[in-house]
């Protein structure tokens, strides 16, 4: 194993023997003439449009309406078990009778498979691509949580958590945290290029754009 390491690095050095490389690697400039973003205004609307374009269902709510909206979203799917990550604001949870909300800290994959829905926040959302990014921070939980249940409701705080572009999103994120970038529900086009929603990830994705008090 150690031998192969030396061998591969040796082969690389031999291969590059004729290549000018006196500058230390990081000092070699890259022309980044591309845009930092393609839009600066109307980001929340653009996000909503692009989310819907990739078949996520988009909703708007204030913090006050949120529990009722979530109750309705769960009700429309006949969901009766909701898993939530640690750090999710209690005020988001619906109080409807017959609904069981479970903190998903210790659930196994098999136990999660028995849950109807999962409710989380997110770390950042990208308007240009219709993407929400989860990084395991407060109110988001382990990656497994938003993967195994068939229905994911994700709350995005607007406008704070919305950025225009991929470059802007990457700057906000810490690479040491495991991340999941989600753009619409899971999909496949493997059969005659017909798009089918939902193979292994949640087949339904509801995104709630949380409007700050006083509206935006």
């Amino acid at each position, binding site marked *: 194993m150690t031998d192969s390491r030396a061998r591969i690095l040796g082969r690389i050095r*031999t291969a590059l023997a004729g290549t000018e490389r006196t500058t230390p690697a990081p000092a070699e400039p890259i022309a980044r003439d591309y845009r930092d973003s393609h839009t600066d205004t109307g980001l929340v609307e653009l996000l909503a449009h692009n989310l819907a374009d990739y078949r996520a269902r988009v909703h708007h709510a204030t913090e006050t309406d949120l529990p009722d909206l979530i109750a309705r979203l769960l009700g429309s799917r006949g969901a009766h078990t909701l898993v939530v990550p640690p750090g999710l604001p209690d005020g988001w949870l619906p109080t409807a009778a017959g609904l069981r909300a479970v903190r998903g800290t210790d659930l196994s994959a098999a136990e999660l498979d028995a849950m109807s829905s999962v409710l989380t926040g997110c770390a950042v959302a990208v308007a240009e691509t219709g993407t929400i990014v989860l990084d395991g921070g407060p109110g988001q939980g382990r*990656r497994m949580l938003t993967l195994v249940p068939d229905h994911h409701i994700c709350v995005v705080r607007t406008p704070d958590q919305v950025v225009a572009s991929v470059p802007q999103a990457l700057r906000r994120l810490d690479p040491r945290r495991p991340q999941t970038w989600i753009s619409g529900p899971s999909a496949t086009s493997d059969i005659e290029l017909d798009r089918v929603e939902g193979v292994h990830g949640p087949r339904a994705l509801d995104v709630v754009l949380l409007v700050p008090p006083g509206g935006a």
Partner: protein
Amino acid sequence: MSAVPLGMPSFPDAAREATRNPTLRRNLRHATHTIRDRRAAAVAELDDWAELRAAGAAIKDRTLRHLDTYLEQAEAAVVAAGGHVHWAADAAEANRIVTDLVRATGETEVVKVKSMATQEIGLNEALAEAGITAYETDLAELIVQLGDDRPSHILVPAIHRNRTEIRDIFRDAMGEWGIPAPDGMSDDPRELAEAARLHLREKFLRAKVGVSGANFLVAETGTLVVVESEGNGRMCLTLPETLISVVGIEKVVPTWRDLEVFLQLLPRSSTAERMNPYTSTWTGVTDGDGPRAFHLVLLDNGRTSILADEVGRQTLRCIRCSACLNVCPVYERAGGHAYGSVYPGPIGAILTPQLRGTGSAVDASLPYASTLCGACYDVCPVAIDIPEVLVHLREKVTAQRGHVIERSALRAAAWAMRDPKRYTALQRAAAAGTRALHPRRLPLPGWGKAWTDTRDLPAVPKESFRTWWQRRDTSGGTK
């Protein structure tokens, strides 16, 4: 790369086989044209595409120029984040490493997310020999695996199968591998996807070992990135206790920031989406989230010899988006299997002969499986000049001796050039002046013969041809 399978027909023979199958041709044509148009629309949304493409090429070139430095940096970062790093000089060593790692867990099953690198090294076969079953979990790969078949497209490996064929494969084979297909399943893609979901979910939930590749490996942070659509990648990366990722050494990018270029270039070029449904990133291991053990296997397997060739080196920029397949007139007609390796289409025509060498008939014929029309270069998000590399490889092939090589090369070229449509495409592209397109150094005698059946030859600079002919004569060429 693992050796050429015994009895693998050369490109023209396999291609002729494919052209006789009307279903295959229809499926391929439909698929490539659909994705091609969608890609163009997705790319047109960004008015800085040219700048992104230039930056993508520049970042990859810089990485390759300092590949040793970046690999050592990546290794240190992965280890610092709690991962283990293994180096594999060739396919056999990579397979041995993965097999030993799986054995050490005591498991005899792994779940796999589609990865070109593991196909390239024949990992599933190697694991099977060791008594370990690898379950492919991409829908298309599942279709291929259950159908005891070979993939024919990088992105849509089952592009050559239609829904009825897929229904039959699922009905006949799912039961042997696990949960059988539901009774009375129709050929509606929704029902087929549902059958795959049920079949695989049981495997995901009990899997203890996952095997993946990666689209990118960030040197400064040790972060791995997997870009996918279905969520099977997330399953394989998140649920198992042990994760083993086999990654070609050219997948490294220097910084986290560099992903801002590739996460824009890749989805639009490959699935023609603004962003693919799921992208996962992880750095080593994280307490309480995902696998407890992470192993990165860095794979050379011929890549360093590509690096040593200053013309061929650009091949290592490839981010496996498959855009070049979808615009290639030869691929459209020949199908993926004709390329005789896991890498089909224009990228396969330059990558395979460089990974495996041009010692066999199929590999020597691959650089000729092209009209040099340049469409692949135009769509390539990292600006690989595929025609330039093809011409370069043709020169290498003609420098070799041997009738078999010579004949299969000649016939591949004749086959590629035979279709009048492709000839027209060549002319059109040349007229558009997007690049120097004329096959000015096409090193084959009689290469235009197939054309002359129907049309006049295009103007080809005579000196270059003669220069080639003389050089070839003195080097003792055959024929």
